[in-house]
């Protein structure tokens, strides 16, 4: 057995881990930090132009080797397991939640409140935006006030977005560009965006990716990154409730068990693998899993549902100008307390839907060469708007992650199974929610001679979170607002698993902001250099 010792052992190598490690290294330069990630390091930035090309030309995986074949979960929405996590291939969207997300109980009598003050979280949003490098334009709505400007000016609004904004605002709804972790000027040693239109594999480094942070940390002497290392179990100190060790196995050297020892352990493995490890780590004193005296580990798994529409409009849209960049309206983040509850964002992107080349005409004739091009051109005279709303749904206690004993990895550990379930109040609002969106899409379509091409409902909850929710009451939550578990003084959970609910817009910036706040608390376990 190989034993590694460090001051802070961070389990998981995604965006929360990168941000936590970076901030801790700044706050406490003398401490040693080890990050353990079950997937591989994909630090071959120089190959990303070629990976991008193969992805476009052959639909090959733009992140070769970014998954572990036998480490899969039912209900998971991404298979990525590598250093950098899902943020290797994220779109970079950096929307903030709003105060309503944290005050559902006190404002609407629904679900729960977060044990954190909005004003305090706002400070950490600013820090997250600085560290990630976010470009954006401030929301024109006074409720969306911010204490600092965005670190970079907003991405240029393409001709397409200008057309779409003009169209969207005819319905009286204000739209502005979505903030993104993409450089509109050289920032933090990375390049300016040059509109490659493939943000999921950014070949220039203009879109933030955690591997940049890890590479920089690796140049420091007190930082270690152990990839391909799967933590299988957390071990407590004898007779105490504190964490003593994490037992691991290196995937490349499976015959050599490894043990990590540290005074502080942090779970930064995302909404799926964090609760999974706690459940796997059950022992005679904690038969339901670690940090789980409340029975809340793997409960209240959250995310947001979504409805979308493709609307054809009289506008000259040139598909491909910058497909990843879109518009947002936060007008519906607020909901009057005397009205039926509905909260959602509203997004618009350019699209080619309905105007793509086709092999057969409407009457079934095969189109070749010139006739195909003529048919395509005729249909491409009008533009398409892709419209989507992420709406606020609240999880039931039984919205859960459980150990699936019928599915095991190569080490015999049961794998997770996630089944989302809305609470009763959310269920009762479903019909109203759908009607609201139908009406909204119709209102939008009416402008510019619009025609509804299609509508659709998501069959999964996007931007998933939860499973170790924070709370002030140890009987109904897993950790406090800093991610410190109620049951184990030296065990923290950071990022997405700590969220009680997932708001109604992309969650990554919130995961990072909460993690940066946790970093301040974790640092207090070590003496300040001053």
């Amino acid at each position, binding site marked *: 057995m190989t034993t590694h010792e460090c001051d802070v052992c961070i389990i998981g190598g995604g965006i929360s881990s990168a941000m936590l490690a970076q901030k801790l290294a700044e706050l406490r330069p003398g401490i040693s930090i080890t990050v353990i990630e079950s997937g591989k390091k994909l630090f071959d930035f120089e190959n990303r132009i070629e990976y991008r090309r*193969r*992805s*476009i*030309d*052959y*639909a*090959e*995986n*733009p992140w*070769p*080797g970014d*998954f572990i*074949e036998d480490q899969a979960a039912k209900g*998971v*929405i*991404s*298979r*990525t397991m590598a250093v950098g996590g899902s943020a290797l291939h994220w779109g970079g969207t950096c929307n903030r939640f709003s105060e309503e997300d944290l005050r559902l109980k006190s404002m609407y009598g629904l679900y729960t409140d977060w044990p954190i003050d909005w004003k305090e979280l706002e400070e950490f949003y600013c820090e997250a935006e600085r560290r990630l490098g976010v470009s954006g334009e401030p929301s024109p709505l006074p409720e969306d006030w911010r204490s600092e400007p965005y670190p970079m000016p907003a*991405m*240029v*609004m*393409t*001709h397409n977005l*200008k057309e779409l904004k003009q169209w969207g605002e005819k319905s009286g709804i204000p739209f502005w560009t979505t903030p993104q972790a993409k450089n*509109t000027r050289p920032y933090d040693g990375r390049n*300016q*965006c*040059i*509109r*490659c*239109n*493939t943000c999921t594999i950014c*070949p*220039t480094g203009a879109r933030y990716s955690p591997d940049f942070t890890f590479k920089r940390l690796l140049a420091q002497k007190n930082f270690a990154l152990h990839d391909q290392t799967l933590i299988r179990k957390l071990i407590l100190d004898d007779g105490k409730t504190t964490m003593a060790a994490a037992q691991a196995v290196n995937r490349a050297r499976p015959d050599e068990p490894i043990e990590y020892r540290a005074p502080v352990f942090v779970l930064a493995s995302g909404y799926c693998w964090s609760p999974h490890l706690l459940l796997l780590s059950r022992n005679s004193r904690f038969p339901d899993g670690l940090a789980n005296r409340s029975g809340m580990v793997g409960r209240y798994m959250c995310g947001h549902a979504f409805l979308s529409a493709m609307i054809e409009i009289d506008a*000259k849209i*040139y*598909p*491909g*100008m*910058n*497909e990843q960049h879109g518009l947002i309206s936060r007008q519906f983040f607020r909901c009057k307390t005397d009205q039926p509850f509905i909260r959602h964002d509203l997004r618009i992107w350019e699209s*080619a839907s309905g105007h*793509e*080349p*086709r*092999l*057969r005409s409407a009457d079934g004739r*095969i189109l*070749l*060469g*010139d006739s*195909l*091009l003529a048919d*395509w*051109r005729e249909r*491409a005279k009008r533009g398409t708007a892709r419209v989507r709303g992420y709406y606020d749904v609240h999880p039931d206690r039984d919205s859960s992650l459980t150990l699936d004993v019928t599915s095991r990895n190569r080490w015999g550990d049961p794998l997770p199974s996630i089944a989302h379930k809305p609470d009763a109040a959310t269920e009762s609002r479903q019909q109203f929610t759908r009607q609201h969106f139908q009406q909204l899409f119709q209102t939008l379509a009416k402008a510019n001679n619009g025609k509804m091409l299609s509508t659709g409902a*998501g*069959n*999964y909850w*996007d931007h998933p979170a939860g499973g170790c929710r924070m709370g002030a009451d140890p009987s109904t939550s897993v950790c406090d607002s800093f991610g410190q578990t109620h049951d184990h003084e030296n065990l923290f959970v950071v990022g997405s698993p700590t969220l009680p609910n997932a708001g109604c817009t992309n969650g990554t910036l919130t995961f990072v902001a909460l993690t940066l706040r946790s970093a301040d608390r974790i640092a207090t376990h070590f003496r300040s250099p001053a």
Partner: protein
Amino acid sequence: MRRRTLLRWIASLGSAIRLTSLRAWAQTASFPGDQTPALGALAAIVLPSELGLEGIRAVARNFERWVREYRPGAEMDHGYGFTRLRNKPVSPAPAYLRQLEALVPALTSGDAASSRRAVEAALEEAKITDLPRSPDGRHIGADLMAFYFRGSDANDLCYRAAIGRDRCRSLAGSDNPPPELPKQELQK
């Protein structure tokens, strides 16, 4: 079947599989072999004449390179939302060569209408109802069209504008409509 017979059969099966793989590899590496004229004739039918003769030849050459650089078994994108691990299927080159061979009499007849009818009949027979998202090996006619029409250059040609969807471009100027395609772009 006796044990020795079974073992011999398994061994011969192994050799046959190895030979088939070797042949597929060779056909991929040298694609389109002696079918270059047939591929050129097919391209002239399924690609737009606006490209001009040289433009059509260039697309056919790019398609040949696409086939030669195809990597059977390569990991495919595993998706988001609904996610699954998949690998690229076997090289389409052997099937393409068979399909080209079947089209040779029509493509070399010198009669554009009959060539066109032959391609349409082949696509009907292959039960291809829509343009593939990307070449999928079912029929070379559909795949050559997918290769071109799903690409960035065809998008530009359709809109008669230098959008450059799959290229890395500057942010500057993107607030204006993309410039019109230069005349020579249309004629190349």
